[in-house]
C-alpha cells in the first residue's frame, strides 16, 4: 500500500502548471474570488494584464499560449478529466494574435466544450478590424477590447460579468 505519494498524474501536472504560470490570489474572500485566466504571448502584456487584474481584486492565472490555456483547463485531449471539477474560472481574457493557436481558435475550443462554454471570453487585440470583431462576437466572445488594455476596461468587464446575469 503506497500511502506516501497519493497525487495523481493530473494533480502533479496541475500543480506544476500552476507553479509555472503564476497563480496569484485576489483580495476577495475565499469562495467569492473572481478568477481570471489570461492568455497572451507577450511578456510585457502578460505582466501588465496580471497587474491590472490583481489590482481589480481578481485571482489571476496567466499563460503564454492557447495550448497552455487548454492544458490548464484540461481540454487538451489528455485523458485527465478527474480532478478538474474544482477549477473555477469566471472569465477568460485572451490576446487575438498569438503564434500557434490564435485567440479566436481558443475561443472556439472553449465554446465547443460542455464544461467551459458558459465562461465569458474576452478577446484583446491591438487591431480594430471590423470583420475580425464580428467573427469573434459571433463565435460567442463577450467583448473585443482594443489594446493597450486599461484599468477602466478591466473594471468595466468585471462589473458587467459579476453584475450582469443576475447570479
Amino acid at each position: 500500500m503506497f500511502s506516501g505519494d497519493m497525487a495523481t498524474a493530473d494533480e502533479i501536472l496541475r500543480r506544476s502548471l500552476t507553479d509555472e504560470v503564476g497563480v496569484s490570489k485576489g483580495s476577495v474572500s475565499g469562495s467569492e474570488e473572481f478568477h481570471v485566466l489570461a492568455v497572451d504571448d507577450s511578456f510585457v502584456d502578460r505582466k501588465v494584464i496580471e497587474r491590472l487584474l490583481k489590482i481589480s481584486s481578481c485571482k489571476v492565472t496567466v499563460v503564454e499560449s492557447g495550448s497552455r490555456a487548454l492544458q490548464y483547463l484540461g481540454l487538451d485531449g489528455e485523458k485527465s478529466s478527474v480532478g478538474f471539477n474544482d477549477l473555477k474560472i469566471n472569465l477568460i481574457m485572451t490576446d487575438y494574435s498569438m503564434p500557434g493557436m490564435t485567440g479566436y481558435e481558443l475561443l472556439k475550443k472553449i465554446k465547443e466544450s460542455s464544461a467551459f462554454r458558459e465562461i465569458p471570453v474576452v478577446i484583446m487585440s491591438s487591431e480594430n478590424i471590423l470583420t475580425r470583431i464580428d467573427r469573434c462576437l459571433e463565435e460567442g466572445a463577450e467583448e473585443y477590447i482594443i489594446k493597450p488594455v486599461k484599468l477602466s476596461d478591466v473594471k468595466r468587464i468585471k462589473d458587467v460579468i459579476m453584475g450582469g446575469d443576475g447570479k
Partner: protein
Amino acid sequence: MDSVVLLQRQLVDYTAQLFNEGFLDDQFNQLQQLQDESNPDFVVEVVTLFFEDSERLLNELAKALEQQSIDYRKIDAHVHQLKGSSSSIGAQRVQKVCIAFRNYCEERNIEGCQKCLQQVKNEYSLVKTKLETLFKLEQQVLAAGGSIPWPM
C-alpha cells in the same frame, strides 16, 4: 531651497518634456497607476521587460532583412510584436514607426523596411535612454527622502 523639492521639480519637468515630445503617451500614466507600496517597482519591471523584448526583436529583424530571400510575413510578425509591446508601455514614437514598418512589409518594399528598421532602432535607443534617465531621477528623489509626485 530644499533639495528634495528641486529634485522633484527636475523630475516633473523631465517627464513633461517626454510627453510633450511624444516619447511617452497616456499608457505610461496607466502603468504608474498600477504601481503602489505592494508593487513599488512595477513600472521599472515592465519597462525592463520591454527593453529585453525589443532588443531580441530588433536582432531578429536585422537578421531577417539580411536574408537572400526576405520573409515578409516573419518580419511583419516581429514588427507587430514590437508595436504591441511599445504600445503597452506608452512608447509612442517607437509604436508609430512600427505602423509605417508594417505598411512597407505589406508592400514588400525592402528599402522602406530597411529605412524603418534604422528608424525604429533610433527611436528605441532614444526612449531607452530617456526612460533610464527618468528612473534615475526618481531614484534621486527617493534617496533624498522625497516621494514621487505622480500623476505629474
